[in-house]
């Protein structure tokens, strides 16, 4: 069936902000979908609240709404735009859920909008737990058998049917307390009894216990004609129990015999045929390693993180093909881009091994549980392609940017290795390696961890190799080490060899077909073969520029950097350069094989990058768009004679070196908060005294940075220093004057002569909250003209003094009408995509042109401060605390958010309302006719400011609740307030939350180690009840303004950013 001509206008729903479990992969999928639709001549309406995405770029869709992804708003957009079709399977769970709601309440049918791709019935069968189980039963596909029992005898009967071992899960107990595993009837009797007793409704779930089973995934496709294929199989390194997003994953599955493989492949195809999937679908299985027994764990009737991984692992673009299928094409009609000759109805044959390694946020959350289970915790991932599992794993680990280039990692605690082996956590791979090196046998480790012996023996190969070279290096051993994936630096360290012969890498192509056909897309990975396909690949003769990507998505370095990298590539290509990209993140658009002229899927480390430079011989390398990942390679590249495009290595160093930078500021009489470096408690107290409290304390060379703290008195300095000094410090602790002023942020482009300032952003929260976690408003709302001029002048001076060629991001603070510089980053920042979209200045495009020598005047986008459009744009952070329930959610100098949303409106309040709605910060307010209350508990330092805020909430009709000291303050202002006992003392606050009397919480004062647990508990409770919880008076104030403004999801203006009004305010 060819293109369905009735499809003329399609709405695509994106996945919204980046949160754990829903990251850049949906921008990759969505961007592919939009491109396919546009190529087919279809009018595309896009809704996505995430401004940092490529899919929300003007060129990718016809009408783009950066609006909240809620059913209400999407309905309004559908009514306004009147598309004939809705494509839902590419916006993650968010997009799918909204589409299903629209379908279920009849909205789609009423408005003549059809769901293209997989239909609602099929989605329901896959998503609804009960329907899914029934469907699987009806087609004879096994699920994990389980049944409910209300007494011991029933439990025993059920267990007999299910087969031992079984796990008992009591109903309605926290964390499954009172359950356990029974291997026979005798054990079950006891466990069932305990479980029934533990359950408040005397009910237990008896479920087949599948600990130690393998976890296998298949990425499949089906078209409307019924053609089915399995694109890729994947196998988890960890057995069932660890979420696949938190597991090391290999592709293809490596330990299955053909019988096992075909059994699961056939089951996948059987399932998608029975469900009637149209497009991509992910099927997850558990496989008993001791038999052919298996169970279907989950089916995701949409593109997913796994499908992005499978696409990059095989070269088969699942999202793109899914969209084509939704448009009516069948698989055999769609060509395979990679070969250009064969069709998309085939199954890729790999002639390499792919290893995925997760990137976890535990460095940002000291003290958080690192245990891995069924709740995903990773924020991102890296992928590596290699000829062997060992090499793939080594590449993945060093590309994950966790400070390792081998599997040797120091343990985090002093438990014996045998005990640590039993813990499924983010360190497990390294614990296993440590165990192997200490002589524990693979068999023993397999017994404890249930990791397949195949993988353990591969790790044993690495351990054996390291033991061999510890006695000295030879040429043959060196060759072997390179093939196992060791970088030279690691080999030197492990062998003690001073000098190594060195070895150039050669590159193979990912071609979907095991070299059976000629490939036309240059997508490379490094090997050690004697033939290099990258060197042999025909070149256009145009000058080559290499763009370094930003690696895995993590807190602080998200999708924004991929946005910038991709735009840089596109601009340079359009300028006539041959552009090469290097990156190792499988979720991104940058690692799509048709983004750059050539793609190298490699870790971003000095040796790996240098090897590619030897092949590509670029005229310049771009480091400015790849976040810290790329920036930190600058010095190395510069020292090796590689030309850095844009701001020079010298300029970058000038901005990053504190002393040099201070001297520069001095020269221009630009202020920065005063500070000092200290080594002892005495020095610290002295410095704090001199600067005046409060001060900001932090170690220089912050790793993870969790030790950044604002302190208010000598007692707190003492506590902080004692703790830090106890750990032993190599570098001084920095003490800076903390000023609770207005924080501003500016992104600047300079060509060395002129300076363009697309926009100034003002943060809602005062300094002290990380800029990535603050709500940012563009344009500023409380800065006068004189100060604006001053900011522009300072920015111009700094940009020129640093020799900026391209972008620079400057953060300012205004305190008592004085302007201070906090930080200067000579690179693309997090705010680039957002400002680009609302100012109409394609910042990365302009910066890329400037880097290659064009001037701002030539480009013609103006200089100085860009005129302000008639809109406010508000960026709000989004956190993943639902996934990381035990972490300290108190906002401070260390960034904690994983993503962001944008709200655009004619007034600051309208934009703020949209941003807060999009970020999920909605609350019951008296306006909705509902009873509402605000619970306020603030620190002593904040008492002075709490009264006006309380008055504001009271005026809005909120009842006031407060803890003792705060209540006193509020009462003193003549307001009536209900006093709530401290969280430590009683459950009073929790009861009020549960009873629904409190609808929003403002809590400051969790800065002490002793009270942080209180806040974590309160926050967790609020999260469970969807009650917003703020830790800054400023955020709460903004929220009150929002409520006061009476905006609702029905009365805001729907803003199409492709049709923004241009008239300057």
């Amino acid at each position, binding site marked *: 069936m060819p293109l369905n001509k009735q499809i003329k206008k399609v709405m695509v729903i994106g996945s919204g902000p980046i949160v754990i479990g829903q990251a850049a992969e949906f921008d990759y999928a969505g961007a592919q979908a939009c491109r396919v639709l546009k190529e087919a001549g279809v009018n595309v309406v896009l809704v996505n609240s995430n401004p940092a995405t490529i899919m929300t770029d003007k060129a990718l869709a016809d009408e783009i709404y950066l609006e909240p992804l809620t059913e209400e708003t999407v309905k309004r957009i559908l009514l306004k735009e009147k598309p004939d079709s809705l494509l839902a399977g590419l916006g993650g769970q968010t997009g799918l859920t909204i589409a299903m709601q629209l379908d279920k309440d009849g909205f789609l049918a009423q408005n003549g909008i059809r769901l293209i791709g997989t239909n609602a019935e099929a989605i329901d069968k896959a998503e609804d737990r009960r329907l899914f189980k029934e469907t699987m039963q009806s087609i004879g596909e096994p699920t994990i058998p389980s049944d409910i029992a209300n007494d011991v005898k029933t439990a025993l009967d059920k267990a007999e049917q299910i087969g031992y071992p079984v796990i008992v899960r009591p109903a309605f107990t926290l964390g499954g307390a009172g359950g356990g595993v029974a291997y026979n009837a005798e054990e079950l009797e006891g466990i069932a009894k305990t479980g029934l007793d533990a359950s408040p409704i005397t009910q237990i779930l008896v479920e087949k216990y599948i600990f130690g089973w393998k976890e296998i995934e298949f990425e499949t496709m089906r078209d409307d004609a019924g053609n089915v294929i399995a694109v890729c199989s994947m196998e988890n390194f960890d057995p069932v129990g660890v979420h696949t997003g938190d597991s090391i994953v290999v592709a293809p599955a490596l330990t299955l015999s053909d019988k096992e493989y075909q059994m699961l492949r056939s089951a996948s*195809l059987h399932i998608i045929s029975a469900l009637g999937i149209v497009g991509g679908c992910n099927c997850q299985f558990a496989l008993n390693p001791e038999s052919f027994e298996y169970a279907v764990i989950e089916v995701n009737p949409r593109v997913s993180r796994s499908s992005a991984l499978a696409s990059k692992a095989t070269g088969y673009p699942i999202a793109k093909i899914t969209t084509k299928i939704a448009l009516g094409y*069948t698989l055999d009609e769609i060509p395979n881009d990679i070969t250009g000759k064969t069709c998309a109805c085939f199954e890729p044959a790999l*002639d390499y091994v792919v290893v995925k390694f997760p990137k976890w946020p535990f460095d940002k959350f000291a003290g958080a549980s690192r245990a891995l289970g069924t709740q995903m915790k990773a924020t991102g991932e890296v992928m590596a392609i290699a*000829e062997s599992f060992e090499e793939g794993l080594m590449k993945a680990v060093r590309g994950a940017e966790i400070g390792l280039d081998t599997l040797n990692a120091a343990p985090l605690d002093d438990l014996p290795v045998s005990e640590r082996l039993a813990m499924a956590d983010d360190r497990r791979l390294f614990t296993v390696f440590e165990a192997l090196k200490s002589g524990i046998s693979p068999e023993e480790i397999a017994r404890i961890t249930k990791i397949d012996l195949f993988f353990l023996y591969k790790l044993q190969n690495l351990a054996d190799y390291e033991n061999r070279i510890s006695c000295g290096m030879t040429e043959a051993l060196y060759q072997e080490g390179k093939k196992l994936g060791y970088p030279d630096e690691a080999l030197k360290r492990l062998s003690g060899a001073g000098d190594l012969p060195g070895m150039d890498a050669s590159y193979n192509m990912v071609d979907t077909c095991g070299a059976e056909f*000629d490939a036309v897309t240059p997508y490379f990975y490094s090997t050690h073969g004697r033939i290099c396909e990258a060197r042999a690949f025909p070149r256009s003769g145009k000058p080559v520029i290499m763009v370094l990507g930003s690696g895995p998505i993590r807190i602080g370095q998200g999708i924004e950097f991929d946005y910038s990298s991709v735009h840089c590539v596109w601009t340079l290509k359009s300028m006539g350069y041959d552009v090469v990209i290097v990156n190792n993140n499988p979720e991104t658009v940058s690692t799509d094989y048709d983004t750059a002229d050539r793609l190298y899927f490699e870790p971003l480390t000095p040796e790996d990058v240098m090897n590619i430079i030897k092949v590509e011989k670029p005229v310049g390398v771009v480091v400015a768009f790849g976040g810290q990942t790329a920036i930190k390679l600058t010095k190395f590249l510069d020292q090796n004679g590689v030309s850095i495009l844009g701001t020079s290595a010298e300029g970058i160093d000038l901005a990053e070196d504190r002393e040099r930078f201070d001297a520069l500021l001095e020269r221009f009489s630009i202020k920065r908060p005063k500070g000092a470096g200290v080594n002892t408690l005495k020095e610290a107290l002295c410095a704090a005294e001199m600067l005046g409290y409060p001060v900001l304390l932090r170690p220089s060379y912050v790793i993870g940075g969790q030790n950044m703290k604002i302190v208010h008195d000598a007692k707190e300095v003492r506590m902080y220093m004692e703790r830090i000094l106890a750990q032993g410090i190599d570098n001084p602790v920095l003490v800076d004057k903390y000023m609770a002023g207005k924080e501003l942020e500016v992104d600047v482009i300079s060509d060395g002569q002129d300076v363009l300032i697309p926009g100034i952003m003002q943060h809602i929260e005062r300094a002290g909250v990380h800029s990535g976690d603050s709500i940012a408003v563009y344009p500023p709302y409380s800065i006068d003209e004189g100060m604006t001029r001053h900011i522009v002048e300072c920015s111009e001076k700094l940009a020129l003094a640093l020799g900026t060629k391209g972008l620079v991001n400057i953060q300012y603070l205004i305190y008592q009408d004085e302007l201070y510089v906090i930080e200067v980053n000579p690179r693309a920042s997090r705010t680039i995509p957002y400002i680009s979209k609302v100012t109409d200045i394609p910042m990365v495009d302009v910066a890329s042109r400037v880097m290659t020598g064009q001037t701002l005047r030539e480009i013609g986008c103006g200089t100085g401060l860009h005129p302000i459009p008639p809109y406010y744009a508000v960026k709000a952070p989004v956190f993943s605390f639902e996934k990381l329930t035990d972490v300290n959610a108190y906002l401070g100098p260390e960034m904690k958010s994983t993503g962001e949303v944008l709200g655009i409106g004619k007034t600051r309040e309208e934009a703020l309302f949209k941003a807060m709605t999009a970020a999920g910060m909605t609350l019951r307010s008296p306006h909705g006719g509902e009873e509402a209350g605000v619970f306020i508990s603030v620190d002593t330092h904040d008492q002075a400011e709490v009264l006006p805020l309380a008055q504001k909430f009271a005026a809005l009709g909120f009842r006031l609740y407060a803890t003792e000291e705060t209540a006193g303050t509020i009462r003193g202002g003549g307001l009536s307030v209900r006093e709530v006992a401290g969280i430590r003392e009683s459950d009073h606050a929790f009861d009020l939350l549960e009873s629904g009397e409190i609808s929003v919480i403002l809590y400051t004062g969790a800065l002490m180690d002793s009270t942080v647990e209180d806040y974590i508990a309160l926050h967790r409770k609020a999260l469970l009840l969807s009650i917003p919880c703020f830790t800054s008076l400023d955020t709460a104030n903004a929220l009150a303004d929002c409520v006061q403004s009476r905006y609702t999801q029905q009365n805001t203006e729907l803003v199409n950013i492709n049709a923004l009004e241009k008239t300057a305010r």
Partner: protein
Amino acid sequence: MKKAYLVLENGTVWEGTAFGAETDSIGELVFTTGMNGYIETLTDESYYGQIVMQTFPLIGNYGIIPADFEGNCSVKAYVVREWCRHPSNFRAEETVDRFLKQKGIPGISGIDTRAITKLIREQGVMNAAICHTLPADLAAIRQYKITRAVEAVTAKAPYTLPAEKERFRVTLIDYGAKHNILRELIRRGCTVTVVPAETTAEQILAAKPDGVMLSNGPGDPADNSAQIAQIAKLCGKVPIFGICLGHQLLALALGAKTEKLKYGHRGSNQPVKETATGRTYISSQNHGYAVVSETIRNGRLSFINANDGTCEGIDYPEQNAFSVQFHPEAAAGPHDTAFLFDQFVSRMEG
């Protein structure tokens, strides 16, 4: 670790590490792109006379499982990137290395299999040798030719495998049959009598089978003139189903021609399109020759390869015969076309 060489007839030499039996061997070098199923590959007698090279780099991960054998191991030698010293599978009995040693077949590892695959893709299938010292010249390699392949692998005497609940009796002419063809037939209630390739049409018809199965097998189909003549005599007298070599022989018997492909189709991912329905299926394949579509007489193309358009199946309604180039019995590979055995059964039902 002992050195070994892979010497190609075009003179290129690849140094690797020996495994398997310590002997030298000459054969026709072919590659297969299947990512697993090496046990089935090693025991597929269609590879008779050939040196098999795996494009997937990790081989032997789940060891050797005798229950999965498709026949005797007839390959001349085995070429891999890496073989697994510590296989892991609940059914694994030994390593690939030990298996090859027992069978007297040499292997070579540590070879850039991708580079050689590309060479074959560009220059076509060629002869090669695995040796432990470099040969003085390439004469022996160049002269090598696979001959009397079917004769070498066919059953030496007839035997019968009964179905549990017999519905039909099928005679399978064994040109090197994969065991899974038998299993698929038996599963469907067919008692299968396996007869040697030289069995005459008269002998076969005398047993009054409900259907005749023409199996897969090695070598150039055109070399089997005696067998082709016998098939011609069977046509129209009994329902016939041919697979792979059986498909080619049936086509030759009915007047079509075959040709050698540049480098064949070997793997588990080949798309075949059913002309009647437009459905495309993923199939397992292992063949170096193909029926020339334009020369088909008395029949119509039922399947074509969705990649290169070559003939993948023919239906002969007048003869009540049909055949496919790919392997519906899979092993190794996808089971997506197993329904063809059902079709064979329905033809026997009349």
